[in-house]
């Protein structure tokens, strides 16, 4: 972010300069310091308490997920380990709140007797991994298509706009239902065991195919307004090729909106991944997953409501932290926006 200035005249970020006449006089106002738009955004973000808190929660979740094997070693229980002695005759956990106690921090799973805490930790890992990879692929696809449509215009633009409308008309969930079982059946016969990476990879592909439209539209809109600017004209006049203009001149000016779209895309992908796994067509056993953990808990919601709530609240906190941080990031990068 800090070298954004080098990229030439900066669209959004210049407009976002807070050191205007209306800005509050700060103690450092007397000595004029040159700051890049990235530094300014960071200063604004640091002042945002909600943003910093949600950012902290996010870092906690990400570290917890990344260090899952370490957590397993310290905690002393694996995701597949079973503790049948902690269940009563009906398969319900002994003790209060689903068996929450000093040795099992979030209780044990009914019937299977697995430790819920370690399931949640590994589930976070799956959720975050799928969502991050899918978001990166989605954004890359969206940038590529949006930048091409916006800059080239004309027939290419019309065709891409129609493609976006077509993609939006496809019902995402129903299409996933149709696509996932079929793709699995296509690659693996009835007796084959699917490899562990297959489902996550399939989900990433589906999410990318359906989600690029949003990024694509935003990038296209930004490029439409940027391409008439002088620096693009200057580049064209000095004989730059289309590729150079697209990716060396236009792209550096798009990082701010792209970053915001990315941070708001991840939570919606986390929700979608959890939903598909909840419905039984996402991540399968034995890979731990938050959505499937909730779906496993639904039959026991009457006898062991704590189990359902633990999975749900983890998902909720994760999504909430991402959304709040995304909002804060948008405010920091573009303080003019009212939302």
């Amino acid at each position: 972010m800090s070298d954004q200035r080098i990229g030439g005249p900066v669209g959004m970020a210049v407009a976002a300069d807070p050191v205007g006449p209306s800005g509050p006089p700060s103690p450092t106002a007397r000595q004029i310091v040159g700051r890049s738009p990235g530094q300014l955004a960071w200063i604004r973000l640091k002042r945002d308490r909600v943003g910093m808190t949600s950012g902290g929660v996010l870092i906690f979740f990400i570290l917890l997920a990344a260090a899952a094997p370490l957590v397993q070693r310290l905690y002393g229980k694996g995701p597949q380990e079973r503790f049948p002695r902690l269940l009563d005759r009906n398969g319900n956990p002994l003790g209060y709140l689903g068996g929450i106690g000093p040795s099992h921090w979030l209780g044990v799973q009914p019937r299977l007797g697995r430790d819920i805490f370690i399931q949640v930790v590994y589930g976070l890992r799956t959720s975050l991994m799928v969502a991050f990879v899918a978001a990166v692929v989605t954004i890359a696809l969206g940038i590529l298509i949006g930048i091409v449509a916006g800059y080239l215009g004309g027939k290419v633009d019309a065709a891409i706009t129609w493609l976006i409308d077509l993609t939006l008309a496809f019902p995402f969930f129903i299409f996933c239902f149709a696509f996932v079982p079929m793709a699995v059946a296509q690659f693996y016969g009835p007796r084959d065991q699917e490899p562990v990476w297959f489902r996550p990879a399939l989900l990433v592909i589906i999410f990318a195919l359906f989600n690029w439209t949003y990024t694509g539209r935003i990038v296209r809109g930004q490029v439409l307004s940027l391409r008439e600017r002088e620096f693009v004209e200057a580049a064209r006049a000095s004989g730059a090729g289309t590729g150079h203009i697209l990716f060396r001149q236009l792209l550096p000016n798009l990082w701010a909106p792209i970053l915001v779209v990315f941070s708001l895309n991840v939570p919606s992908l986390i929700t979608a991944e959890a939903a598909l796994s909840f419905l039984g067509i996402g991540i399968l056993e034995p890979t731990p997953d938050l959505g499937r953990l909730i779906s496993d808990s639904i039959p026991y919601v009457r006898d062991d409501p704590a189990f359902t709530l633990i999975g749900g609240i983890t998902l909720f906190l994760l999504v909430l932290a991402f959304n709040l941080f995304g909002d804060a990031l948008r405010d920091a990068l573009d303080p003019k926006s009212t939302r």
Partner: protein
Amino acid sequence: MLRFALRKLLLAVSTLIAVSVLTFGLFFVVPNNPAELMCGNRKTCSPEQQAVIERRMELDRPVVSQYSDFMKGIVTGRTFGEGATARRCPAPCLGYSFRNDEPVLEIIKRTLPVTLSIVSGAAVVWLLVGISIGMVSALRRGTVFDRLAVGTSLVGASMPILLFGPLLLIVFVYEGGLLSYPQYTPITENPAKWASAMFLPWLALGFLNSASYARLSRAQMLETLSEDFVRTARAKGLPKAKVYGRHALRAAITPIVTIAGLDIGTYLAGTVITETIFGFTGLGKASLIAAINLDMPVVMATVLLAAVFVIVANVIVDALYAVIDPRIRLG
């Protein structure tokens, strides 16, 4: 006006045709052996069984004529197989589910009312509650009400239905004992039972969507209130209620109508998670079951139907624009 309508209609039809070709291709052309996929228990599927399926579903014919037969069937109906095993599928024939041994249309007729009930009630809740909270909070900006509404809607917009649905079940059914577990009753049989079964899904979907609609309409209203025409209307002495209620509201609500149209269209296609949590068999649940069983005709029909919902919702929204916002001229 007429040209606009024609162009929109043409675009809608072309999108629909593209969706139908793509789904058809995906289900009946891409798999190397569609008959084996649809065989039921794939582990025990013998070549003879596969041949029967292939003949009955006419999978052995050229793809183009399969597609045109499907389209013709919607208008005229068609018959699958011949002799004693022949199955009649009356118009409008959306395919025949050999798994359930009934026309796909029957499955849709059974499940669509459930989804329709859920979505219609929930949409009323979220539009009324969400938009009015957003509007009031924009007009009373900075007050306790506004801050409370902003906070609640921020949290509510991040609430996954996977948490909120079970939470409602725990509070109202299992721990509170205020309601019994929902059981769908058609409205024509017993409206009171219908409403009480629908209460929890309405609350779940209604609350979750209210949050995002409140956020959206607050932002829209704030933007509209700062526009010149509102100031002019106030300056010429119009009463507040008239300025806000008639002038500002109409401008602010236009983008909300767009999103509401898309949302309702998408939800009609399937509120599958809500249906699963509360134990209803609606359109979404039916298509999920069909997909897991690889019952392709049902899945194909539901994908098409869902696309129709989204596209029709889009056309209606476009038409509504001109009615709501006088600044928009169709042309």
